[in-house]
C-alpha cells in the first residue's frame, strides 16, 4: 500500500533541485529545459531509467510537478496532455524498447503532439464495435475508415489509433493498435463544431492510409488491451482539475460577490463539500496507486468529477442570474496553439455548456457505473449477445 522509501523521495528531491540549478527556468529555452528534465528521469519518475523516469513510485511525480511549477519551469504536459498522460504510459506498458525510445522524448519535449483516434460514429460507448479496417500489405497496413471526437487532431503529429484487423474474430479480439503519423497522405482532419460554438473535436477520415508495421503497439489482434491502458489513463485524466481553480472554488468566489437567498447557500455548501470529498478521494486513490496503470477505481473520480462540474457550473449560472440569458461568442473556430492557452479563461456560460459533454466523453456516466458494478463490486455482467459472435455478424443500427 503506497510504501515509499524515504531515500527514494530524497533522490527525487535532490534531482529536481539539481535540474533547477543546472537549467534555471528563467534563462533556459522551454525545449532545452524539458529535454534536461527528461534526461534527469523527472518526466515520469515511475518510468524506467533512460525513458524519462527513475523506476520509482508514481506518487513521487507530484512533488516534482509542484516544485517545478513553483520554480516557474515549463510544463511538459501543458499543451500535450493526451500524449503525456495517456500516450506515454501506453507506450511504456506495451511498446517495444525501440518504440519507447522513438516516441517518449519527442512527446515530452514538445516536438510531437498526440491525439486519440478511438471513437467512431457507430462506436461510442461500444468502442469495441469500431469498424475502421486495416489490411496487411507487406510491411505496411492500409487503413480505411472514420474516427470522431478526436480533440487536438488539427494540431497533432501522432495519433493513437485502434482499428479492426480481423472482422471474423469476436469484436474485442480482432483489434490492433497503431501510432499513426498524422501527416501521412490520406489522413483528413475536419473540425467538428459543438454546442458551445467552437470546434474542440474533430472528425478524422482515413482513406488508404499506409502505416508501417513498426508503428504497431502490441501484437496483431491484441489491440483491445493496449487501448484499455490508454482509456484507464484517460479516466484518471478526466478526474483532474485542469483549471487552477476547481468549479466549486469558482462558484464560491462568485457566490461571495452576490446577493443570495438561503436556497443558494445550501447548494453552495453542498458543492463545496462535494468538491472537498472529491479531492480527498483523488488523494486516497493516488496513494493506493502503486503500479503504473490505474484500475477501474479511476471510474469513480471520472464519474464524480463530471457530475460535480456540471452541478457547479449550473449553480454559477444561477448566481449570474439573467446574465445567463446571454453568451460571449458563437464564432466557430478550431483549436489552435493560441486558443489552447486561452482555454482556462473561458466564459462561465461556455464552460457550463461544455460541461454537458463531461458525462459523455471518455466513457459515459452510464458506462462508468456499469464498470464499477462489474469490476469493483463484482456483480455478474449483463447478458451480452454481441460478445462472442464474429464481429461481422453483429446487428448494427
Amino acid at each position, binding site marked *: 500500500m503506497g510504501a515509499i522509501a524515504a531515500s527514494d523521495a530524497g533522490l527525487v528531491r535532490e534531482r529536481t533541485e539539481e535540474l533547477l540549478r543546472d537549467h534555471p527556468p528563467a534563462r533556459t529555452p522551454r525545449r532545452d529545459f524539458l529535454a534536461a528534465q527528461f534526461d534527469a528521469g523527472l518526466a515520469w519518475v515511475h518510468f524506467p531509467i533512460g525513458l524519462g523516469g527513475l523506476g520509482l513510485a508514481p506518487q513521487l511525480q507530484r512533488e516534482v510537478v509542484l516544485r517545478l511549477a513553483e520554480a516557474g519551469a515549463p510544463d511538459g504536459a501543458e499543451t500535450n496532455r493526451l500524449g503525456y498522460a495517456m500516450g506515454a504510459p501506453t507506450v511504456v506498458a506495451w511498446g517495444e524498447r525501440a518504440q519507447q525510445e522513438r516516441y517518449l522524448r519527442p512527446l515530452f519535449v514538445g516536438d510531437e503532439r498526440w491525439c486519440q483516434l478511438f471513437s467512431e460514429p457507430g462506436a*461510442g460507448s461500444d468502442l469495441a*464495435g469500431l469498424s475502421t479496417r486495416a489490411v496487411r500489405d507487406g510491411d505496411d497496413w492500409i487503413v480505411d475508415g472514420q474516427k470522431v471526437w478526436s480533440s487536438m487532431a488539427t494540431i497533432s503529429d501522432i495519433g493513437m489509433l485502434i482499428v479492426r484487423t480481423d472482422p471474423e474474430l469476436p469484436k474485442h479480439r480482432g483489434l490492433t493498435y497503431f501510432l499513426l503519423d498524422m501527416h501521412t497522405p490520406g489522413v483528413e482532419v475536419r473540425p467538428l463544431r*459543438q454546442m458551445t460554438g467552437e470546434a474542440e473535436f474533430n472528425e478524422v477520415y482515413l482513406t488508404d492510409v499506409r502505416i508501417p508495421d513498426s508503428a504497431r503497439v502490441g501484437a496483431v489482434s491484441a489491440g483491445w488491451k493496449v487501448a484499455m491502458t490508454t482509456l484507464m489513463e484517460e479516466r484518471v485524466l478526466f478526474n483532474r482539475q485542469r483549471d487552477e481553480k476547481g468549479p466549486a472554488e469558482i462558484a464560491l468566489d462568485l457566490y461571495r460577490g452576490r446577493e443570495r437567498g438561503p436556497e443558494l447557500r445550501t447548494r453552495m455548501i453542498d458543492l463545496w463539500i462535494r468538491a472537498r470529498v472529491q479531492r480527498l478521494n483523488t488523494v486516497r486513490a493516488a496513494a493506493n496507486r502503486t503500479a503504473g496503470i490505474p484500475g477501474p477505481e479511476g471510474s469513480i473520480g471520472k464519474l464524480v468529477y463530471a457530475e460535480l462540474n456540471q452541478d457547479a457550473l449550473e449553480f454559477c449560472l444561477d448566481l449570474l442570474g*439573467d446574465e445567463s*440569458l446571454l*453568451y460571449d461568442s*458563437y464564432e466557430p473556430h478550431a483549436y489552435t496553439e493560441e486558443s489552447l492557452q486561452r482555454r482556462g479563461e473561458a466564459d462561465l456560460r461556455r464552460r457550463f455548456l461544455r460541461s454537458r459533454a463531461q458525462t459523455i466523453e471518455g466513457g459515459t456516466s452510464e458506462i462508468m457505473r456499469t464498470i464499477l458494478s462489474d469490476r469493483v463490486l463484482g456483480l455478474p455482467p449483463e447478458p451480452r449477445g*454481441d460478445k462472442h459472435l464474429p464481429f461481422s455478424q453483429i446487428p448494427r443500427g
Partner: protein
Amino acid sequence: MTDTMGVDDAREDLRRVVRQFLERRSTEADVRRLMADPAGYDREVWAVMADQLGLQGMAVPEAHGGAGFGYEELCVVFEEMGRALLPSPFFATIALAANVLLESGDEVACKRYLPAIAGGELIATLALGEEEGGWDETAVRMRAEPDGAGWTLTGRKRFVPTAHVADLLLVVAHTSDGLSLFAVEPQAPGCTVDVELTLDLTRPLSLVTFESTPAVLVGRSGQAWEGVRRALRFAAVALAAEQVGGAQRVLEMTVEYAKVRHQFGRPIGTFQAVKHKLADVLVALESARSAARDAARAVAEGDPEVELAASVAKAVCSDTFTRAAGAAIQLHGGIGFTWEHPAQLFYKRAKSGEFLLGTPAHHRDLVGRAIGV
C-alpha cells in the same frame, strides 16, 4: 374539472392545425436560418399566422378585434410553438404585451394597440429589467420625468424579448406615484435597440437605451404593478406551455433515437439505464403538463389562485424542460453535443427559459409566500 367533449375536440383540432403548419414552416432548417437572420423571424410565417390561422388575435377579446378564445386554447398554440422552437415575436407580443395592455385597465391604450396586435400588424414587447435583470418590481430603477402633458424616459432596459423588431415597447418605470407603465415607439427620439448575443439564438433579447425619449403613460401613474405582475404570471403560463411542448418534442426525439441507435449489438433503448432515465423524463413531463394545463385553466377561469398556479407551472415546467433536453444530450452521446444536432437548440431554449420571467427558485419562493411558508 371534467372537460366536455366539445371543448376538448376543438382544442385537439386547433393543435392539429397549428402543428401541421409549424411542421411545414418551422422546420429545423428554418429555425437555424432565422437564428442567423437579423430579424430573427419569418415575416411571411407571421402573416400567415395572423391572416389565415388567426393566432395573434385568438385570445384577444372580441371587443378589441380578436376572436375571444380562452387562455387554454392559446396555451395549446404555445405548446406547439415550443415544440417547433418557433423563432418569433409572438411570445413577446401576445404573452407579454397583450396581457400587459389588457391588465393595465387602460381602455384607450387597448383600443389603440390591441386590434393591430390581433391583426398581426403590430409587434410589441415589455421592457422591465435593467442592469441586473430580474422580473419583479425590485428590477425597476428607471424614473420617468414629466414633460409637459407627457413623459420622457432616460436609462437602459436589458433582456427585452424581440425588442429589435417591435413597433411598440411597454416600459415599466417609476413616477413619484410609484411604478407606472409607458408606451414608447422605438423610432422615437433617443431610443436605440441593440440586439445582444443570446445563449438561446431562437429568442433574441435586446438592450434598449432611452435618452429623454417621449413616452405615453398607460393606465394610472403609480398604479401599474398589480397589472404588470398579473400579466407576467399569465406570460409565465404561456412560457410553461411552450416548455411542455419543447420537452415533449425532445423526449420524442430521444425515444426515436434510442430505438434505432445500436451499441453492443442492440438498440440502446433496450438498456435499463436508458429506459429508466426516459421513464423519469416521461413522469416529469406528465407532471409538467398537469401543472401547465391547470395554470391555463386558472387564467381562463379567473381563479383567485391563478398566480400560485402560474408559479407552480413556471417552476415545474422550466425544470422539466431542462431535464428532458439534458437527457436528450446525454442519451444521444457525442452527437447530441454537436452544433449540427437539434438537441442543443432545445437545451439552450430550456436553460434560457429558466431565467426568463423568473427562475424556478424565484417562483418556488413565491409559492412559499402564497402558502404561508
